[in-house]
């Protein structure tokens, strides 16, 4: 409707031109962004020199990226929970890392019992499925209790108050598990889950009564040397399993939130709790559902994590919890694909960054948080986090 009036305005530049010029202008005229840009450039320069001088090879990058992929998948699964809860309640559920830990812990008792009874060896897949379910149920239970005891009574309180209860709940859960189950790490059994013997004909073969029997790919505990494009890689299928799992669950979650009735109710509650209540939505129930969804993802992630990292301790949730929250913010908190992307990004940056820049691995968190700051300088609401964040901030 305004087009008719614009004939006397300067001719509109092309879209691409406009974007580049505004970007340049925005960057050059903003000292902060300029500084950020320079720093980013410096990082890239260091990385490039490292690669050029042969200190860092593509092979190392691919190898480290693969482990980063798994770590990133775990971050993503936890981050989804953060993002969901944040989207609806605008609160940082600091105890989410402990929800993750609870899943892994209780899952341990399940898988341990099944190992004792021999079920793990006989029906591996079923046993793993049960462990996963147990882990999910444990996480969900803890999350529901948390919501009911620590968060729901404070729904109208100032925003910092639930943050403190969340921190308190986080410490309480961590210490409670420590006091209940002891400080020594619990160790998941090593699980061999063989799949697709038809495709992987020459893997895990053994002579059984004179005949060559091949069991196939060991999905969980397998470690294979593969030569791809001249790169000598060590592949653990479980890394890809984790990443795959994270992506599938993310997509499922996305569909759930976008398409189902409950998902729509969740979005409505996120927009405006009062209005949603007036529309006949049971806000408490929707919020509880959100916690359940987030916890289920965390619980599933926890069991996967424990399956390939073995050790489970009461403290295992804290650091991943913080990283996952970083990932959620990186992607734009409240945004489902954003959390996912943030998780993978963080995982890969953490594992490739120190070597790429040739600095101590101690500083990997510095790289992760530094990138977070840099990204937030350019996009204050995270990579994808525009719509929701601007409205709520």
């Amino acid at each position, binding site marked *: 409707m305004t087009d008719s009036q614009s004939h006397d305005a300067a001719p509109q530049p092309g879209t691409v031109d406009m974007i580049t010029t505004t970007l340049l202008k925005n960057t050059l005229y903003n000292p902060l962004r300029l500084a950020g840009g320079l720093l980013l450039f410096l990082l890239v320069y260091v990385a490039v020199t490292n690669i050029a001088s042969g200190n860092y090879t593509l092979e*190392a990058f691919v190898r480290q990226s693969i482990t980063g992929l798994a770590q990133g998948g775990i971050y993503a699964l936890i981050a989804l929970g953060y993002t969901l809860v944040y989207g609806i309640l605008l609160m940082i559920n600091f105890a989410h890392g402990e929800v993750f830990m609870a899943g892994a812990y209780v899952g341990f008792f399940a898988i341990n019992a099944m190992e004792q009874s021999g079920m793990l060896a006989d029906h591996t897949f079923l046993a793993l499925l049960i462990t996963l379910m147990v882990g999910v149920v444990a996480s969900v239970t803890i999350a529901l209790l948390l919501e009911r005891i620590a968060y729901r009574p404070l729904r109208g309180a100032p925003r910092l108050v639930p943050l403190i209860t969340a921190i308190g709940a986080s410490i309480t859960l961590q210490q409670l598990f420590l006091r209940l189950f002891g400080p*020594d790490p619990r*160790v998941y059994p090593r699980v061999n889950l063989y799949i697709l013997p038809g495709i992987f004909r020459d893997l895990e073969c053994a002579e059984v009564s004179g005949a060559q029997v091949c069991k196939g790919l060991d999905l969980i505990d397998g470690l294979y040397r593969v030569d791809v494009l001249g790169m000598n890689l060590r592949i653990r299928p479980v890394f890809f399993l984790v990443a795959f799992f994270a992506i599938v669950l993310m997509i499922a979650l996305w569909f759930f939130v976008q398409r189902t009735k409950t998902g729509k109710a969740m979005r409505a509650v996120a927009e405006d709790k009062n209005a949603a209540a007036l529309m006949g939505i049971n806000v408490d129930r929707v919020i509880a559902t959100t916690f359940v969804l987030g916890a289920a993802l965390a619980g599933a992630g926890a069991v996967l994590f424990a399956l390939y990292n*073995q050790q489970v*301790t009461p403290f295992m949730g804290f650091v*991943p919890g913080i990283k996952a929250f970083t990932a959620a913010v990186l992607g734009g908190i409240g945004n489902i694909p954003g959390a996912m992307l943030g998780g993978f990004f963080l995982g890969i940056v953490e*594992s490739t960054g120190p070597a790429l820049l040739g600095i101590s691995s101690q500083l990997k968190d510095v790289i992760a948080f530094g990138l977070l700051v840099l990204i937030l300088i350019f996009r204050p609401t995270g990579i994808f986090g525009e719509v929701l964040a601007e409205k709520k901030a």
Partner: protein
Amino acid sequence: MLRKIVLVMGVFAIAALGLSLVSAQDTMGSSVMVSPDGEIVIGVAAALSGEGLAPLGEDIVRGAQLANINRPTVKIGDVEFAVSLDPQDDTCAAEGGQAVANRYVSDERVVAVVGPMCSSACRAAGPIFDAAGYTSISPSCTAPDLTDGTFASFNRVVPTDAFQGVVDAEFVFNTLGITRIATIHDGSPYGEGLVTVMAEAFTELGGEVVFQDAVNVGDTDFRALLDRVADADPELVFFVGFIAEGSRLASQRFDAGLDEVAFMGADGIFSPDFISTAGEAAEGVYVSSPTPSSEIYDAFVAAYVEEFGVEEPSGPYHANAADAYNVILNAIEAVGTVDDNGDLVIDRAALSEAIRATTDYEGLIGTITCEENGECASAAITIYQVMDGAFVLASETMESE
């Protein structure tokens, strides 16, 4: 306004006057008095909380407790005085060491202290014990500079890192014949300190440290770091830190293709918990430890297992703690006097001297002779290797000169 200022000044003046008067009078008790029905209290400072630290601290407390059970009294002439322990958590950190030291020096009944456990805690506790005229014997503070004469109160019955690091380097270079190593520590003063000594000694011997890095406590995924280690192509990975990180590194090294590369740790992971946590990955791992292998030591461990209902000691320092306890008791017996009321009087300065004058005490960790600077560990470093889920001797015990 003026009135206010005058009032405030007045109060401050009174307070200052009181302060100077009372504090002038408040001199530290230079001796301890114990009545015949009282107890000689010995503090035990160790980390009783914290992931991976609590088992080590608990081990120290148990060592002292067992020594206390074996020798529950001090005999002065023909009078016996009971000894009791006062264990406190030093959290293996400077703040904890400071708090614990303040706790002990404000309790006049505490005669001496076994501990603290970690070098940073020892460093923070040192000035406080010094000022109060207390004396302490640490079973596990290994930082070399603790005995450089700064602290009059500090003694230890554990070999310094300067020694352990050299022994480790010699073992790797001479016994194993390895020339390329990578080192990793956990960012604790202990880890960083020992790794630095070891790396220096190893380079001096003619070896090459091809990669040096550190892990963050609490992290779970060290695969990227291990991948960098693998790229540097060492023959052995030397890690100093505690059980949690150690067992993760040991397990994850296979994912990075370090199957053929030896893995070695130090006393921080010398614990059955390391083996049970790392599982199969612990097989073949070398661990250096101040724990000796001798008959009296084996008997002590047997008593320990019996007393506390565990399968094995949860850490490496129980013997050092027990020896520290006994050295203190010996010193008390040497300097304690019974006064006319039948009370035991222990002069703190004399006690401190008596401890440093300890010669040729046959302890669990070897023959203990204290030097002027508080270095009491004539003790030895022994290197073990994990075989079939247990620590077995990998080398002869190496005695210090």
